């Protein structure tokens, strides 16, 4: 019985490591967004420093999730279509996230308002990628 549940579970999701990397992008990018909002409202520069590092962290996890996803595409079989959509979402998140990181490398208020807008878009994209990744795909390793 237990074995059946496990098997069922594995069939529903990507590999736990892959899932962890993927899900990590949301708090990091969301944290950057919230920090941007705080800087926008207070002019307190420390918030923009937080945003810069959270973005950098988000890009690292996002990048690792892309690696997992590329491997997954090749092992996806019949699910390849969904996997490609997932991969495209991840890559779009990363590219916009990288542009946002460069925007955040500007000094003081030069970050704004573009940085805040980009943070909103990147956070939404990360949520979309995670949604697709966690609900529609199953782990190639389980087959």
């Amino acid at each position: 019985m237990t074995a059946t549940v496990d098997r069922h579970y594995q069939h529903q999701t990507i590999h736990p490591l892959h899932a962890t990397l993927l899900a990590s992008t949301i708090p990091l990018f969301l944290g950057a967004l919230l920090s941007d909002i705080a800087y926008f409202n207070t002019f307190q520069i420390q918030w923009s420093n937080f945003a810069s590092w959270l973005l950098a962290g988000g890009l690292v996890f996002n990048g690792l999730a892309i690696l997992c996803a590329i491997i997954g595409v090749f092992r996806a079989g019949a699910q390849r279509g969904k996997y490609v959509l997932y991969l495209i979402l991840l890559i779009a998140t990363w590219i916009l996230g990288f542009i946002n990181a460069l925007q955040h490398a500007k000094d003081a208020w030069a970050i704004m308002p573009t940085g805040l807008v980009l943070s909103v878009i990147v956070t939404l994209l990360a949520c979309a990628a995670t949604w697709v990744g966690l609900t529609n795909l199953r782990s190639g390793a389980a087959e």
Partner: protein
Amino acid sequence: MKYSKTLSLSLLTLMLGACGGEQQESANLHGPDPELPEPQRGLLPSMEIAEPEQWGDKRPIVPDGFTVTAIATELQIPRQTLVLPNGDILVAEGRGGNAPKLKPKDVIAGYIKAKGNTSVESGNRLTLLRDSNGDGTYEEQGVFADNLNAPYGLAFYDGNLYVANQDALVRFDYEEGQTQASGPPEKIVDLPSEINHHWTKAMTISPDGRFLYVGIGSNSNITERGMEAEVDRAMVWQINTETGAYKPYATGLRNPTALAIKPGTDQLWAAVNERDELGPDLVPDYLTSVQEGGFYGWPYSYWGQNVDPRVRPQDPDKVAETITPDYSLGSHVAALGLDFSSEVMGAEFSEGAFIGEHGSWNREDPVGYKVIFVPFSDGRPSGEPVDFVTGFRDEDGTTRGRPVGVTVDPRGALIVADDLSNTVWRVAAQ
């Protein structure tokens, strides 16, 4: 060094023309009324880092009628020099600053910029050079004082040798002919040193020896370390030599890297390095007379009332009272040396100021890397600057030296400190 070149090129390529590819040497970058283009900044800042190379048989290029010799080599980062009454030369050596890296950008930019500088350890000392027989060869070289903390500004008056460390103003007793300090210095006053993003403490002394003027640079490019970090920064202090009492003499000077009193007057002049990341032709570094109580714009505005949009909250009142500087030296040249000339430098260079330009690191088409002469008439800068010492950097980026302090030796020479090759050059009138 190849790597940095490749890296900077790829960074530039990535900019996708965001920074406007071609650079024409625009007609009017120098002087009292420079052209100020619209601010611009691509996603990546331009970085073009010097590629250090040995001098070998090469020498800096000087005008006809002058000779150039290296009077001291293998120093530990020479910055500013002082000619003592007996002709001995003191050289302040060191590297300061302890600014923490706040953003991923600081880590990356710090790594790239370090490639264009010397890797020698900070000397934290004063070296004394002596030419006993006046033949232009400085045969004696010894340590006058050590265990200092990134000394930079030097001044002398009547038996008192003043040294501006990066964290304190100190004083040595000096007797003519002395080659070594008689003991550790006496501290006159602490100088602002927290973070020390811009650490150099430039200094000069009033003709009557009563006041020292010390330049204290800002703690950021443009407030990106927060306004709290800018208390007592971006200003020139006037310090009483007897009591150590000080007051801000002029403010809003982003990084006053060299100070000098024009001989025959009581007027203080400053070479000031302006802000980055507004484009290749913004913001001009400048030479200006410094008015007591004057505000010169940083951080709220540049070159008079041009508001810098990167500063929040803004301050329209401060912008309204901003004084426009006297003379643009061009953007990003990094003017670090200033001294006034005299008739010993020959008729052509007798009236004006020499400026040591360390050279740009964030401009696609590098500028600076030379010593210029700004001619004066009627006590004011007038006319285009003239190249005085060049040959520090080749077209391909190969860089043998970077000028810092310049000092006119009354015996008829310009002393130039070079902190890349760790050399002191003497440019003598024949």
